[in-house]
């Protein structure tokens, strides 16, 4: 992963801009959009539709995933293709709470979730116990992805599995998990997953105010996730992590254990994905094994690549841009989306390896080049150019300059 464009050594001005940008995004998601949905009456020019609120909430969840992915991939150099799995595990944990809070209002009027009645199960499986409590479900949404990532990472990093080999194994992991969750006997609703949620913490999920509150919480969560990752990458441990990405062998001879640092970045990344999943499920109203498809995880990598690896703000932008485009294009030109996504990935890789954030540095460079050209012209007008020293070919002079 030597192609990363930035490091903690980049000028602080850039970082201040990045923080300001993300702060604006978070303020929009956490405050502006929910308020504009709730306060102005429907029909007012300022009113934001319920649909848009849910869309923004969803995008913010994706942005959290992208920030987490960037920590692992952009900074630590670990290309994960199973972040969709961590997202889904967090989502399932929240989904289990939402299923339990339906109570006896399901189709079969049973205290068991509908799919269990349908399968003729008589009692709740042991691993569903506790999920009737919100706090427990939230803890599990963070803990389960964290533990899965820790155990998997512990063995992989200790065995020094890296690069594409690691990526391939992670893809196999999420695929295996998907097959497992597809089975009815696993006890998570099979291919239908968990759905038909009614309420969260007693508030109806149909109520626009609940939706607005969820969007707001997601915005705050994005700010927190960004702040955590930003603190990590600007700490000395962050510098060790990027050093490890660039020259792993050398880090070892400096006395740092790369396996421990990778495990830390990787596990933290998975926990953040779990949080995003837990916020996503009540807003979209469903979680099913399709979230664990390898292609979902590949898409996460594309968001980060498009936005700019190794820049947390770039990851946020990438997630918003790609998913914003997706939700528009899949409606406007349903068949074109996959081609656009493919073209986007190839195009960014070839033309803009630093992602869209690279555009800002390019613009800056172009401005200074133009500035220098203008300055050079006026200087040339003032003083005639000194004749080139003899005996030195012009090309060599150019090279020296």
């Amino acid at each position, binding site marked *: 992963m030597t192609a990363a464009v930035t490091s903690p050594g980049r000028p602080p001005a850039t970082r201040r801009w990045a923080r300001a940008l993300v702060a604006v995004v978070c303020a929009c998601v956490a405050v502006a959009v929910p308020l504009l949905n709730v306060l102005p009456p429907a029909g007012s020019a300022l009113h934001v539709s319920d649909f848009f609120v849910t869309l923004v909430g969803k995008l913010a969840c994706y942005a959290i995933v992208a920030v987490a992915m960037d920590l692992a991939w952009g900074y630590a150099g670990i290309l994960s293709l199973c972040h969709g799995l961590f997202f889904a595990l967090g989502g399932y944990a929240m989904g289990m709470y939402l299923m339990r809070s339906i109570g006896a209002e399901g189709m079969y009027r049973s205290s068991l979730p509908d799919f269990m009645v349908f399968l003729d199960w008589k009692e709740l499986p042991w691993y569903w116990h506790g999920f009737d409590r919100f706090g427990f479900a939230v803890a599990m949404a963070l803990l389960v992805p964290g533990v899965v990532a820790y155990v998997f990472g512990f063995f992989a990093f200790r065995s020094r599995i890296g690069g594409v080999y690691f990526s391939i194994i992670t893809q196999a992991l999420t695929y295996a998990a998907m097959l497992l969750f597809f089975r009815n006997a696993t006890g998570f609703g099979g291919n239908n997953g968990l759905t038909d949620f009614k309420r969260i913490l007693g508030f109806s999920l149909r109520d626009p105010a609940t939706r607005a509150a969820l969007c707001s919480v997601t915005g705050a969560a994005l700010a927190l996730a960004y702040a955590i990752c930003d603190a*990590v990458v600007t700490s000395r441990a962050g510098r060790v992590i990027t050093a490890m990405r660039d020259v792993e062998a050398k880090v070892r001879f400096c006395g740092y254990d790369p396996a421990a640092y990778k495990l830390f970045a990787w596990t933290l990344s998975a926990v953040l994905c779990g949080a995003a999943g837990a916020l996503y499920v009540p807003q979209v109203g469903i979680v099913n094994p399709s979230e664990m498809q390898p292609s979902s995880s590949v898409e996460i990598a594309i968001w980060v690549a498009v936005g700019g690896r190794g820049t947390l703000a770039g990851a946020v932008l990438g997630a918003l841009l790609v998913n914003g485009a997706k939700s528009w294009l899949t409606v406007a030109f349903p068949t074109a989306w996959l081609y656009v996504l493919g073209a986007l990935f190839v195009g960014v890789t070839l033309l803009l390896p630093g992602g869209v954030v690279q555009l800002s540095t390019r613009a800056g460079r172009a401005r200074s080049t133009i500035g220098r050209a203008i300055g050079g012209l006026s200087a040339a007008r003032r003083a005639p150019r000194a004749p080139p020293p003899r005996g030195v070919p012009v090309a060599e002079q150019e090279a020296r300059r």
Partner: protein
Amino acid sequence: MTPVLAVDQVTVSFDGFRALDGLTLSLSQGELRCLVGPNGAGKTTLMDVITGKTRPASGTVRFDGRDITRLPEHVIAGLGVGRKFQRPTVFPEHTVHENLELMTRRDKGVLRTLFARTRSDERAAIERALELTGLGDERRRLAGLLAHGQKQWLEIGMLLVQQPKLLLVDEPVAGMTQEEIERTAEILASLAGDHTVVVVEHDMEFVRTIAQTVTVLHEGRVLAQGSMQDVQSDPRVVEVYLGA
């Protein structure tokens, strides 16, 4: 006095080829030792074994009286064994200052490092290294943008900050100008005494300038050992080098 480093009967084979063949070597505190030998003599393999990169098939390595034969690299580094590679390896996406800072002596666990603040003794060590290597003006530059020679200096500076008890240096003057070679010789000579230094070098002129004791390796074994003069007049050494 116990030797700082005691390599005892170490054997390493790669697919039947014996890179090290029952090699025994010991270094005392403060020594500056040069390792020479033709290509394939086992110089780099020996460095790999001492730093934990390669596990020997048999034999032991003791550092400060402690058996380090089976310890992982980062633990050995933490005990005070530093290494400079043949090609300059610095962290290209970090500034010169950050490169030096990563080498300071402190607990290198994840959590401690996460909440680390730069201490005053660390700052002093970094400033001293910047001064000795003449990189003071470059401290804010990304190390990847430095010239080749400057990277060599940065790497030496990183070792100065690390302050290892035992320093292994692989071909320090490759690609350096005469002036730089002289300065490197000075720095290495000044390090010996407080530190124990092992230098692998092909440049015989350089070895002659700095060496106190020279060890000649050949086919994974110690062929000869002694002062530069003794070694050069040893008929076995002449034979190996000139193929007479």
